[in-house]
């Protein structure tokens, strides 16, 4: 348990630091790389919670596809690769206030509702169990997700093509 808490502490520190830099950096490409660090840290947390299949899906889909897609977006919109002082708008202070208020409210509610509860022991869920659940209890949402992916594919092509 001690080792798990040490790993959690390291991951949490790295993730929060990278997320903070993600929303404050003045360099778009670096922001994408900080996002990759946060996503990799989340994959580590999933491993810590014995969700191995989700961890590898996270690595493949998020770090492998979404970050690369975002980098392509940066490239295609010709954002400056170096520093750009104009990435923040003038509601920075209000945004920080809203985020802090939200954090305070959520933190108070979470501490009130789950204070002192431990995760305890949990079984390691193999990919087979996840698959059984998806193709058993969650078959209809799974099919809906495939329809959603198809329509997103068609929609993205229809939006982005030059006609």
């Amino acid at each position, binding site marked *: *348990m001690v080792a798990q808490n040490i790993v959690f502490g390291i991951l949490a520190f790295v993730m929060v630091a990278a997320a903070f830099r993600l929303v404050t950096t003045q360099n778009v490409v670096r922001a994408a790389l900080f996002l990759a660090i946060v996503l990799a840290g989340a994959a580590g947390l999933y491993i810590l919670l014995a969700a191995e299949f989700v961890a590898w899906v996270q690595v493949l889909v998020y770090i492998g596809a979404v970050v690369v*897609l975002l980098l392509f977006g940066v490239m295609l919109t010709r954002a400056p690769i170096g520093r750009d002082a104009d*990435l923040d708008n003038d509601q920075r202070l209000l945004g920080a206030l809203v985020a802090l208020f939200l954090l305070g409210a959520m933190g108070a509610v979470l501490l009130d509702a789950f204070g002192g509860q431990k995760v*305890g022991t949990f079984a390691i869920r193999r990919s087979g169990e996840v698959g059984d659940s998806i193709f058993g209890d969650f078959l209809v949402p799974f099919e809906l997700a495939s329809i959603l992916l198809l329509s997103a594919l068609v929609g993205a092509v229809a939006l982005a093509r030059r006609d």
Partner: protein
Amino acid sequence: MYLNQFLLLAAVLFCLGVYGVLARRNAVLVLMSIELMLNAVNINLIAFGAFRDNVIGQVFSLFVITIAAAEVGVGLAIVLLIFRNRADIDLDELDLMKG
């Protein structure tokens, strides 16, 4: 491991994402902040799945990952279309629908 350590970490990440959505002007950076928020939700789902010792949290987080992938694809297509029409992706300038 306490349940709250995961939930509070996810809350911090979610609030940083909210700040990013509110304070950023570049549309691609706003999309990145949205990914940060979705990821925070995923951490919550996995933590509750381990807390309840069932597999449903993992299944839900897989659905969230699927929908996030679809969202970022369509979102980037829209951003590219805006860039092609206006040669700029500054969200403050996008007030076409303002009354």
